[in-house]
């Protein structure tokens, strides 16, 4: 019973995405079907591990700023998220 789920519109890799308010960027990326939040040092695709800001596996670029923790960031209108 959340208070009024507002809808947030933003973009992942240039494609528009709509999610309900309060969704984390990590969750939104998983919903979008993307399976490489980042590429590891040796090129492996990675998804979140800890979900709580500890492991740094969920790093993405948000509004041009690299290495942001997507699991600790809530989606906001107009946000530009870049994975890979």
């Amino acid at each position, binding site marked *: *019973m*959340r*208070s009024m789920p507002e809808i947030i519109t933003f973009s992942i890799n240039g494609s528009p995405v709509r*999610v*309900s308010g*309060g*969704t*984390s960027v*990590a*969750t*939104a990326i*998983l*919903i979008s079907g993307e*399976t*490489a939040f980042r590429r*590891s*040092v*040796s090129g*492996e*695709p*990675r*998804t*979140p*591990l*800890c*979900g*709580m*800001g*500890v*492991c*740094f*596996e969920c*790093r993405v670029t948000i509004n041009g700023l690299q*290495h942001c923790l997507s*699991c*600790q*960031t*809530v989606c906001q209108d107009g946000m530009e998220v870049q994975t890979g």
Partner: protein
Amino acid sequence: MKRRQFASVVVVGAGPAGLAAAIRASESGRQVTVLDDNPSAGGQIWRGEKDRRSGNDASAWFQKFRTCPAEMITGARLIHGDPERRILSVETRQEFFEIGYDKLILATGAREFFLPFPGWTLPNVMGVGGLQALVKSGLPVDGKRIVVAGTGPLLLAAAAYFRKHGAIVPVIAEQAEWRSVAGFGIRLSKNLGKLFQARSLRLALRSSRYTFSTWVEAAHGKDRLENAQVRTGAKVWREPCDYLAVGYGLKPNIELPVLMGCRTQSGVVAVDEFQQTSQEHIYCAGECTGIGGVDKSLIEGEITGLAAAGLKDSARRLFAKRRKTRQFANVLDRAFALRPELRQLPLDGTIVCRCEDVRWGRLRPMNSWRSAKLESRCGMGPCQGRVCGQILEFLLGWHPESVRPPVFPARLESLTQDSEMKESLRT
């Protein structure tokens, strides 16, 4: 954009322990500021519960917190502190600031403990708490197959949660033996009932296989997880799944207390009966003083809040209650001790340090954490060894090095501070 602040009590961590501490301290007339790096209060267990109106424990505590005058700053990560000057450096997404305190309460909680096995870096292999947190933040798992594996009561809680959200949990693989958990089980019904709602526990158990002495040996898939290779005794099978949620219990977040000069003992922060650390003005409560579940965190939080406010007599009245929760913690520890076979899981090619992709074969012949770091970059990435440090402690008995600022990676600007040194340093 810089602001300076002072609060007579600063609480770091808005989990059960931090919230209880903040409520008690501010009821006692202290001006309290709570900082937490999550987007909302609640810590691990009450993540995303803030706006819910179910009649459980969480909502009662949130209600109390809402009506107490404590200030809450979410999305704020503590990255450094100076126990002498009693100043903390805090970073948010937009800004950074320093905040002074008279008393500091560290309620930094715990994180999940992971063990490496072939395939654990595949997409959609996640921590138990990690996947739960994502579901709490809106990830739909309706109709998804989720294998839950590892150890501890968290497996059951998470499996129940996933099922409630429509997931199929074909197996809950508990590595501990039935015998040792059964000993725990005497208290299971009573205590687990508190850990999460008993009804969903029954649900989880009814149509999932909760099997003991069982663990995941490998995860398979091309670009993402396709199945989990599960072993119980000599029997091995592949369980198709969309997600593998695997975690081997919790480890206290002691980095910040250590940076602040607090003494630790066997991996937890050492505290006296009033939860005071070896640093005079710093208290610790909750999982960072030892893993023991939500009740321990709450009662320790209350004691800490009262003690920090100088109300020692009121704090003392809660000691008996705390004793019980700590006994429960000890039982937990013994019941879910890790089996030695888990040390054999990684193959030479298995990544141990996920930040730097350092593999087991490279690390195995080395003789210390420091030489591994220097030679292989193990632990040098942004998680600062939080994941691989614990793994190597378990696998090789190495102890991580001292903690240096920033205690979490932070923007460079956040490491600057107001300082008269600025000019005098130029020669």
